[in-house]
């Protein structure tokens, strides 16, 4: 199987930003992953205390809704993305075949569970993973997945299952191609608008904050307070794996480290260069330090989680001797997350003021 001529597979920290960058790069536009993330108004914090995902603890979202980065970057940069939705995977793949045969790479939203070229620990039921189809033969496709160092191969049967999930929030049988890119992009305008939007979603007006207390800064505070309750609500392996999953989720699951905050810092540095703004450069440094501190906090969570025994039978006895220590460690983590929330509240208010002063 051969990839489309001229397509360059590049890894990325996140699937949607990486897929978008790889698609527009093929179309002739040079853009970095942090710039895609920043212009896509990526940063977010959502603590879905009422929902459970692959972790044993409630779901946490660290970025905006899947496919919104495509939507925002397309709009602000003038990139003409073609979105096509089909009733079934057969129809979607017939269309995808046409594009591939014409030499056009096709972005697809899939469930990671069926991506057989990935190691087993990454193959969870996450229905909003983005990949690019860059080649095909009779029964298989060549896949450019930002999480995979090399181009992967996926059987048609697996791809069909991955595209047609019926999962909540999934974009089933959904194709993205680039119809056209603009001659020039007003990067300053795009970056400014995107920063304003990010400030708005992170801080939110007071009325909305009360309605959705699990989103943005409020969501971070809620999460921080819940951390203290973990030892009362969860036990044994459930507690251990939940803590570890949270920490690994902040760092390794497509965030670029520090729950996307380091990537956002990289975006702010690039934006500061565009505007020649020392104020924005200063904010970028603060965000990068914040991201690095988030990493330190994730390491602390890993330390705490690893102390919990792997075997449920040992847990009650372990709790008698180590329970107080764990409670106090989680209390400290909770305090530090509250500080992180306070930092972000100040930071996005400052960003708002700096953006208003940019030319």
């Amino acid at each position, binding site marked *: 199987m051969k990839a489309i001529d001229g397509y360059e597979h590049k890894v990325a920290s996140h699937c949607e930003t990486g897929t978008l960058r790889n698609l527009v790069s093929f179309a002739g536009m040079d853009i970095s992953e942090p710039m895609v993330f920043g212009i896509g108004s990526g940063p977010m914090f959502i603590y879905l205390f009422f929902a459970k995902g*692959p972790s044993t603890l409630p779901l946490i979202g660290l970025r905006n809704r899947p496919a919104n980065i495509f939507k925002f970057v397309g709009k602000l940069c003038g990139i003409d993305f073609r979105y096509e939705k089909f009733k079934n995977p057969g129809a979607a793949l017939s269309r995808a075949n046409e594009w591939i045969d014409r030499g056009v790479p096709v972005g697809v939203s899939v469930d990671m569970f069926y991506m057989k070229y990935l190691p087993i620990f990454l193959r969870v039921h996450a229905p909003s993973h983005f990949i690019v189809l860059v080649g095909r033969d009779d029964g298989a496709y060549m896949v450019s997945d*930002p999480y995979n160092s090399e181009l992967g191969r996926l059987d048609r049967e697996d791809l069909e299952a991955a595209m047609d999930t019926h999962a909540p929030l999934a974009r089933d049988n959904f194709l993205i191609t680039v119809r056209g890119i603009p001659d020039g992009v007003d990067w300053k305008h795009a970056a400014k608008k995107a920063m304003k939007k990010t400030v708005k979603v992170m801080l939110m007006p007071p009325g909305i904050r009360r309605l959705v207390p699990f989103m943005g800064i409020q969501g971070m505070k809620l999460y921080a307070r819940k951390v203290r309750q973990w030892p009362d609500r969860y036990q044994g392996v459930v507690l251990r794996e939940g803590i570890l999953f949270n920490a690994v989720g902040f*760092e390794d699951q497509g965030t670029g480290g520090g729950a996307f905050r380091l990537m956002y810092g990289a975006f702010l540095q690039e934006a500061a260069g565009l505007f020649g703004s020392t104020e924005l450069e200063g904010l970028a440094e603060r965000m990068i330090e914040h991201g690095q501190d988030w990493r330190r906090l994730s390491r602390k969570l890993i330390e705490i989680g690893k102390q919990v025994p792997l075997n449920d039978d040992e847990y009650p006895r372990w709790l008698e001797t180590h329970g107080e220590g764990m409670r106090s460690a989680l209390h400290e983590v909770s305090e530090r997350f509250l500080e992180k929330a306070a930092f972000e509240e100040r930071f996005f208010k400052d960003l708002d003021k700096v953006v208003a002063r940019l030319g």
Partner: protein
Amino acid sequence: MIVRENGDRYDGSHRVVYYAPDEQGRCAPQHVKSEFDEQIESFYELREAELERLQGRLLAGEISSIGFFVHYCNMTVQDTAARMRTTQGRVRRHMTPEGFGGLKVRTLKKYAKLFDVAVADFFQFTHIAAGMNATAKRFHERLIQKVQVTIESEGDDS
């Protein structure tokens, strides 16, 4: 379901992209080994322990094969029901041995697609001893499965 005696192990080859400040203070991407590789290794151990625990519950008649795979694939009843386009009550019933007994082949095919297994995997565990290898090929929308068991050749560590 094919269960290998030696189990799957992490080969340490996975790399992730982290952003970190370089010498000039620019936050740049680095394609490196995960800092949390140790957790990945413990994932395999836990998965093996979970397989054993769930298999015990299945053989004791506490859960059905559907229940086994819902737990083994780390899914919730809510998510399973949404993906199967049925109610949570029905999924809960299918997760019991009694409810499983009344399932139609058509429904089993849908579950098989969801869990990425063959229909045969709901009825059988094939344990492969060390030194042996097994490959499974599915036909007719996961309804038929051909399992080929071979002796591993020297130097083959798959």
